């Protein structure tokens, strides 16, 4: 069916469904948060409940129409980018937080609820939803499930997957299923919900999410250390873990990022530092106090040139501001900002960062690296200009080399952004033929006609 027919038929068959069809309406849905990808869709629809999603999918399956599910469009791998002639299913109007169950420590939300709304609802009950992706004020919880999003607390608290107890999913044939429950223990059959986490909308459409919550940590301690050498920062991280401390935050900025932060926000960072490390520990006040002191000592023993410890909440905010403004500071430098998320085992961090810096220099590129030192998830950020084709060619080459090296070190091409379009060429090498073959089999079993988000993750 051609795009015009598709949108006309939807208007005719689903008259109550809000549907956008004009070019001025569709253009703003032709991209997500990923740089340099654009594709117009045939139409954008806004269902208001799961039943409407199921009815629509049953019909599109019959008609053989491709469907791309979209949340808030903040993804960084092109996962919600429309494919040619596709129908975009936007879930932002299915957005209620339905229940906070304090006895079972769970929260039930519709897929389009924002991550911030979920976190706030949990906090309102004195509870805690830990995953905090950078876009959480905007991103939807359904999108977080689809991409298995991470955040700054990965080391101690894990990622989205670690908090999913149940999912309501519309399957590619339009059937509505519920997977999982409120039980902490449940081994009845395959854990099917796990199949859909991180599946990027290629296997089904998540419409409801049952989340696990934690008690809110009573206390938090914030430290900021500066280092003259990156390997000293990495050694500090290793020593902290070896001392059996699991901080909730271990974030670093490299020299280029430090310079950009200083240019932009003047927070008083030493420009000659090779790395700064933001460290936070949370939990019981006595433990936090003790761990804070130990982390300070370890940082000094491993060559930190300075260590600041926040005494008040305001001071903690001030210390954290360098890390918080890192991305903004980098994003202002040039017209195109490409944020990557190569990830390696923690023990290989210093080697990886070193390699990124060398690769950037070799290809005459500006790359600022920051990220989650505790969990090995790096954000090499390319500061470039998509109109400069020569430079974009070098960016691509550098990225390829960085991903290859990450794989060589036992790491992965994406820690938290997903594969989508952007990482598709690198996936075969990252996971190997057998694994990729298995993925294809799963996709074929659930979506034999390849109608849900076709062409994402793999072809």
């Amino acid at each position, binding site marked *: 069916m051609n795009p*015009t027919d598709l949108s006309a038929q939807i208007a005719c068959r689903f008259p109550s469904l809000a549907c*956008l*069809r*004009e*070019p*001025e*309406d569709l*253009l*703003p*849905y*032709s*991209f*997500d*948060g990923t*740089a340099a990808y654009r594709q117009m869709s045939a139409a954008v629809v*806004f269902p208001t409940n799961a039943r409407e999603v199921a009815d629509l999918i049953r019909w599109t399956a019959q008609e053989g129409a491709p469907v791309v599910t979209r949340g*808030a*469009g*903040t993804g960084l791998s092109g996962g919600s980018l429309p494919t040619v002639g596709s129908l975009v299913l936007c879930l*932002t*109007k299915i957005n209620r937080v339905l229940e906070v169950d304090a006895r079972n420590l769970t929260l039930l939300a519709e897929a389009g609820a*924002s991550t*911030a709304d979920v976190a706030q609802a949990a906090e309102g009950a004195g509870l805690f939803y830990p995953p905090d992706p950078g*876009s959480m*004020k*905007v*991103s939807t919880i359904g999108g977080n499930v689809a991409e298995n999003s991470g955040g700054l607390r990965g080391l101690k608290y894990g990622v989205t997957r670690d908090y999913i107890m149940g999912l309501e999913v519309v399957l590619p044939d339009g059937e509505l299923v519920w997977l999982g429950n409120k039980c902490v223990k449940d081994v009845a059959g395959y854990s099917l919900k796990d199949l859909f986490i991180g599946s990027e909308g290629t296997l089904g459409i998540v419409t409801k999410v049952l989340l696990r919550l934690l008690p809110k940590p009573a206390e938090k301690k914030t430290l900021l250390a500066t280092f003259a050498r990156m390997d000293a920062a990495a050694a500090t991280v290793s020593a902290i873990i070896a001392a059996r401390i699991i901080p909730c935050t271990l974030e670093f900025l490299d020299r280029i990022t430090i310079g950009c932060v200083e240019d932009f926000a003047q927070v008083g960072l030493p420009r000659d530092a090779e790395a700064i490390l933001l460290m936070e520990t949370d939990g019981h006040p006595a433990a936090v106090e003790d761990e804070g002191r130990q982390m300070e000592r370890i940082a000094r023993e491993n060559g930190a040139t300075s260590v600041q410890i926040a005494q008040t909440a305001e001071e903690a905010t001030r210390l954290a501001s360098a890390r918080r403004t890192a*991305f*903004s500071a980098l*994003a*202002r430098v040039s*017209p*195109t*900002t490409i944020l990557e998320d190569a990830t390696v085992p923690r023990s290989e961090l210093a080697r990886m960062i070193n390699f990124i810096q060398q690769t950037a220099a070799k290809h005459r590129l500006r790359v600022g690296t920051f990220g989650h030192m505790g969990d090995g998830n790096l954000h090499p950020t390319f500061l470039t*200009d*998509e*109109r400069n084709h020569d430079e974009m060619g070098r960016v691509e080459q550098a990225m390829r080399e960085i991903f290859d090296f990450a794989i060589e070190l036992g790491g992965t091409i994406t820690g938290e952004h997903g594969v989508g379009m952007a990482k598709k060429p690198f996936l075969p090498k990252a996971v190997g033929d057998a694994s990729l073959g298995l993925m294809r089999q799963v996709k074929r079993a659930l979506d034999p006609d390849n109608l849900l988000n076709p062409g994402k993750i793999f072809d």
Partner: protein
Amino acid sequence: MQKPPPGTTRDDQPRNGKQAGHLAGLDFSVLQQCMHCGLCLPTCPTYDETRIERNSPRGRIALMRGIAEGQLGVTPAFGEEMYFCLGCLACETACPAGVRYGELFENARPDVEEAGVLSGGKRRLVRALTLRWVFTRPRLLRLVGRLLYFYQASGAQAFVRRTRLTRLLPKTLRELEPLTPRVLPRFSDALIAPVEKPAAATHRAGMLTGCVQDLTFSDVNRDTVDVLLANGCEVVTPRAQFCCGSLHAHNGELELARELARRNIDAMERAAGSLDKLDVIVTNAAGCGSHLKNYGHLLPDDPRYAARAARWSAKVRDIHEWLAATGWRRPTAETPVSVTYHEACHLCHGQKITRQPRAILESIPGLKLTEMPESTWCCGSAGVYNLTQPEMSQTLLRRKLKNLAATGAGVVASANPGCTVQLQAGLRETGSQVRVAHPVSLLARAYAKEKAEPGS
């Protein structure tokens, strides 16, 4: 979707619409700076109401980019979208990449006007009457003000409202009537001498009295001068000042905006001798201030004015900003009043001034400041938005009034005439007793009270 006209292809001509000049002429990197991360979405008042990407900053920038690249023409839908945007600049505050949305927006609207895609006879007439005629002629504007004053002071307005005679008016006018601000009997020139000096002057200030501000809030202008005098400023006030041109710049009339900027620079130079003889040019209207600071960017290619405009921009300060930077005398008399602060978009987003007005309010003994939820959320006034988009404007006004009521404050402080008129209209409509006051007026009253109660 319309088909391209025969004989043309998509590549060499935009599809359904006219060629765009201003957007296409922009340095493209300004448009490209948007990395579509979406962090602006939750701060955009129109997107928050509709949840449609087109009604968001990210969506609008995508459309502008589509036009600049020739993928999209300047269509009626594009024109409508550019006027559905409030221009509140909340997105600039939220943007991690520093996109200058205001600049994009100011270039998009002239494209819409020049393409003529929104041309209805009535719209043209209203724009010609207001933008080209009344708001470029200070004396005419004041004459209109005078007539409005007599309409109000004679009791005619009260009569018309009481007897619901407004029902006889055409729909547009009927909707506008409740928004007509109360015009004051005397305008700024009658209240403020050309030069006023304190006992000992440490600074010399040029005072901008505005246009609407001058008709409806000349008392705020007087208060501003009093506060400046109380803080050691000699105040120079040019007569019969022109509109600053923000109305024009924000409504696609950049040429008129430039002309008004030149006349304002001339007038201030005449009154003060030269701009160099002033330490500061003070404005108390947020919307104007945001634009006045922009004269340098407005006239960079004008050989006679470029340097003067840059000097002008460097000297313009919002009154709160100036007082906070130079230090103001804390009043001593007790003023027991409960206040909440509404942040004008062009103060908090346009000029990033948030701390100073609060500090000034809190310096008044006895004044209790209660924060309202969403204090930075647009009230729907947005220049002439309440006239052009009454529905969305009313939705935002209701939201603001609800947040305001939640504080229980008896006074709402607002530092922008547009917001003040909008809030007053909303409060009157709902029968609320809450008053609207400029922070500087509250400070001026606190100073005045000291004189009334010496020794306190």
